[in-house]
C-alpha cells in the first residue's frame, strides 16, 4: 500500500513533484504576502507613535486606523 502510494507504477516522481511544487508555491506566496503585511503594519505603528497627542487622537477617531492598531493578532 505504502509502496503503491509512493511509487505509483513509476509515475510517483511526476505526481509527487507536481504536488510538492504546488504546495511550495503556496508557502512561498503566503510568506511573501505575510512579510509585506507585517512590514506595512509596523510602518503604520511606527508612524502613529510619532504623532503628537492631538493628531494621534484625530487619527484614532477613524475606525479603520483603530482597527489596524487593535488587530495585532496575526494569522
Amino acid at each position: 500500500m505504502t509502496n503503491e502510494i509512493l511509487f505509483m507504477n513509476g509515475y510517483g516522481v511526476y505526481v509527487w513533484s507536481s504536488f510538492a511544487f504546488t504546495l511550495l508555491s503556496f508557502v512561498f506566496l503566503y510568506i511573501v504576502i505575510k512579510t509585506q503585511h507585517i512590514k506595512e503594519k509596523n510602518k503604520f505603528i511606527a508612524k502613529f507613535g510619532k504623532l503628537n497627542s492631538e493628531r494621534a487622537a484625530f487619527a484614532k477617531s477613524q475606525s479603520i486606523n483603530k482597527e489596524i492598531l487593535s488587530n495585532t493578532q496575526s494569522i
Partner: protein
Amino acid sequence: MFKYFEPNRIFSITSKAPRYVLFLFILILSIGLTEALVFSPEDYKQSHAVRIMYVHVPAAWITLGIFSTITFLSVVGYIFKLRNFFLIAKSLAPSGFVFNIIALVTGSIWGKPTWGTWWAWDARITSMLILVLFYLMYLIAWRIYENNDKAFKITTIITIFGIINLPIIKYSVDWWNTLHQPASINILSKSTIHTSMLFPLMIMTAAFALFSLLIFLMKYNTELIKIKNKGLDRL
C-alpha cells in the same frame, strides 16, 4: 450599492477573516490531498499520472477566473471611477499569477509521461504562457506607477488586451488540432469524467479557491494599511 465596497466599511471584516479562511483552507486541502493521492482511482490509460490533474486543472480554472474578475473590476472601476475596485483587482493578481505558473509547471510535468515531452508549442500551452506574461505586465505596472490615475489607466488597458486571450485558451483545444486534450468537464453538456475523479477535483478546486481568497484578503489589508500610511504622512 457601491458604498458597501468602501474600505472603511469592509476592513473590519477583511482584517479578521484571514484566520478563519486559513483554517478552512487547511481542512479542505487535507481532505482534498487524501482523496487525490490515496482514494481516487488510477486512470485506465494514464495510470497514476492522472493524479496531476488534481492540482493542474484547479490552478488553471482559478487563474482564468481571477483574470476575468480583474478585467471586470478594472473596466467597471475605470468607468465609474471606483478606486476600491482597482484595489481589489490589484490584490487578486498575485494569487492569479502563482496559479498560472502552477498550471504551466504541473502541465509540463504531466506532459512528460503522457506526451513524452516537457514542453510543446501547442495552442493551449502557448496561450497559457501568454496569460502569465499579461499577469506579469499587470503586476509590474502597479509596481512602476503605484496607486495613481496612470496605474488605473495602464492596468485597465493591460487587462482588456489580456482578456482577448481567454477565449483563445478556452477554445484552443477545439479550434486547433492540439496535443492538449479537450475539456472533460462541461457546465452545459454531460461531463466525461467519472464521479470518483470529479469529487476530489471539486474538493481541490474549493481548497485552491480558499487559498486565493486568503491571499487576496491579506494583500487587500496590506494595500489598505499602505494607503492609511500615506494618510498619516499628510496629518
